[in-house]
């Protein structure tokens, strides 16, 4: 499934969890791994200087600088890369998400792996809007699934034995389902088809009684069967779960309870204006709170 994996890195400690996951995945799947680092932003237009992302210093964008940075990346990941033959390290100056997308498109990669943000402060994860703009830019436009890794992932969890597919029945969720289903089939995983009925209280919002909620949940179960189970030919290692609550909270809770190895969701669902669909707020919250990698799907693959 993952013949080509693109690991986009800041080449700093903040990407360690993502690098471990990307390299392990490449080993497991015999994938070609592209390690990509946008090494600086070309602030001077046509000038030859770049602002180094790591140091913030102005650097001269010369072949020497490029090879120095490549060397540093190679050194950073040397121990992990030992058992991996098929990898390449790519660097260039540019707007990171643009260059990540350009490379992903050029090499027709099957998966992009990256960390959630470029800020060193882990505490920032607790707050909204702290996702790095690079990750937002990539998930917004990527044609392949994007795996966001924001916590340490033990090797065995990368077998993806427990996959939670969170749906809101949007068109993009159909695309996310296909990815989750294909992966579950390939890995022989348990696939949880999960929906959380949104009962977030709001001004003027109807307050449901438990009976109404239960009724709704039954209806949703049927809808899951009709929408997804009907497409699973002979695959019976699945489980349908419908909970009520605040969707992101319920998905995260459910994933924890089932010790999920992976959460798969559509990038955004209701927002049709692409510029506003930076990343669905449910997705955003899930990425930040989940204790396993999260895959964002934005296109029918």
């Amino acid at each position, binding site marked *: 499934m993952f013949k080509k994996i693109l690991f986009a890195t800041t080449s700093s400690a903040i990407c360690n969890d993502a690098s471990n996951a990307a390299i392990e995945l490449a080993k497991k799947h015999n994938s070609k791994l592209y390690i990509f680092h946008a090494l600086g932003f*070309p*602030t*001077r*237009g*046509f*000038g*030859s*200087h770049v602002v180094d992302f790591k140091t913030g210093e102005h650097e*001269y964008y*010369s*072949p*020497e600088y490029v090879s120095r940075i490549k060397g540093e990346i190679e050194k950073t990941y040397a121990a992990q890369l030992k058992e991996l033959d098929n990898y390449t390290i790519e660097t260039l100056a*540019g*707007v990171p998400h*643009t260059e990540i*997308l*350009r490379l992903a*498109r050029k090499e027709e990669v099957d998966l992009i792996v990256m960390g959630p943000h470029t800020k060193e402060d882990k505490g920032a994860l607790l707050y909204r809007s702290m996702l790095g703009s690079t990750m937002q830019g990539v998930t917004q*436009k990527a*044609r392949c699934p994007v795996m966001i890794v924001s916590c340490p992932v033990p090797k065995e969890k990368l077998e993806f034995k427990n996959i939670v597919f969170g749906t*809101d*029945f*949007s*068109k993009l969720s159909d695309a996310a389902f296909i990815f989750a289903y294909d992966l579950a089939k390939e890995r022989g995983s348990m696939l949880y088809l999960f*929906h959380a*009925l*949104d009962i977030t209280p709001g001004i003027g919002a109807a307050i449901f009684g438990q009976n109404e909620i239960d009724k709704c949940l039954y209806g*949703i179960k049927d*809808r899951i069967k009709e929408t997804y189970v009907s497409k699973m030919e002979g695959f019976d290692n699945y489980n349908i779960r419908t909970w009520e609550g605040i*969707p992101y909270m319920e998905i995260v809770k459910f994933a924890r309870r089932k010790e999920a190895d992976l959460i798969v969701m559509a990038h955004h*669902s*209701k927002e*049709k*204006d*692409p*510029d506003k669909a930076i990343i669905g707020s449910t997705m955003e919250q899930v990425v930040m709170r989940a204790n396993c990698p999260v895959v964002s799907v934005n*296109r029918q693959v």
Partner: protein
Amino acid sequence: MAEEAKTQEEKPQDKRPLVSRVPVKDKEMLDLLLADRGVTYYEEMKKFPVDTEAFKKTLDASCKSRIRTWLKICAHCGMCADTCFFYLANDRDPKQVPSYKIQSTLGEIVKRNGDVDTDFMINCMDTAWGKCTCCNRCGMYCPHGIDMGVMFGYTRGLCFSQGFVPHEMKIGSGMHWIFNAQMDVTVEDYVETCEWMVEENEEYYPGLTIPVDKVGADIMYVVNAREPKHYPQDLAVAAILFHLAGESWTVPSKGWEGTSLAMFAGDWACCKQQVENVYAAMERLKVKRYVGTECGHQHRATITEGPYWAGRKSGDPPVPGLHYVEWVLEALETGKLKLDPAKKIKEPCTLQDPCNYVRNHGLTDVTRKIMSYIAEDFREMSPNREHNFCCGGGGGMNGIGRYRKERNIGLKVKRDQILATGTKFVVSACHNCWDAIRDLEEVYKIGIKWSFLKPILLEMVIVPDHLKPKEEEEGANE
């Protein structure tokens, strides 16, 4: 010449000199220059001799009555002093008075008929690129109509012909020679980027295309190489807006780049070949009009000055040339593009007038009319319109490492202009101005935002019903 030969002999055989009187036309030389930080380049320059014989010939052939008269009739009245932002930003240093700057460089060259030395030429270079952005503001205030900006443009050409040109400018014109673009973006790269941008956006804008080499289109759209290189979304937004406006448009494969670092570098031959590429595309595709992206010097190079470089007697390009702001206004006034008035910018905002298409091409009212469509509280800078100061990064200044300190001092004038408006948002429909304003924020941290027009328009534009994507089935939660 003998001296130069000796210098070259002393070098290892496998190392080509970085400084030379000829433009960079091969990739190997370009790579050598790119690999150099400018250190070796400027060290070499200190020993690089002036070819005085060739200099005399160049002067004879190119220094005509206008320049000679201007140099002679300058009364040294000093009226130009206050017009120059470098003079103002440098505590009114007399050495920054435009007339002094030109008399002490070009004036001396003409007086001595090219009999000058290396140190003199390095000073010329440092003045022509490091103390002047060719914004032409001084020319507006000179009682004799002497335009020091024009003369510095000419001086740059003389410096280039002798090999005394800033490192990045030498590279810039080399890029144009090799790639027909200011950056290493090939035709294949460009076309590929167009395809990519369509793929990224067609789902949201069904029917979106970027027609490449479509013969007979109404509009040929030409960009700045920075867009495909670093900001391909800009190209995507341009395509979306043309699409929503229902325009018949195309982008050329060959001739897609409208800018000219060759103009900033003073590489006259390169200016000619660069603009002829664009004109050839206009003729090949038989388009009705040209629209260039949000770039000031692109308009100057292709529409204002280009026709003369290409030897066009009419002084016009082969088809009428519009700056992007002209197309936007036309689309707004004719109703091709409709904006949602509720989405107008609410916070106070100001507008940067780019020298190249405002002072030097008279598009003063166009941007103001656009502002009336997009902003609720538009506040003018002072001075403004054709009197506006250069952003501080024009004429190649933004890109030259050697003059970074000087550039940053010069930015103070724009900083104070923006601060005086009391706004925190600057609309800038020019790449160079956009860069300078961004750098200004980086250096002085005055807490401003800045934007091109395209992203603002995309935010506000009303998508006609027939161009909207089909509604998907609503989710269970709705």
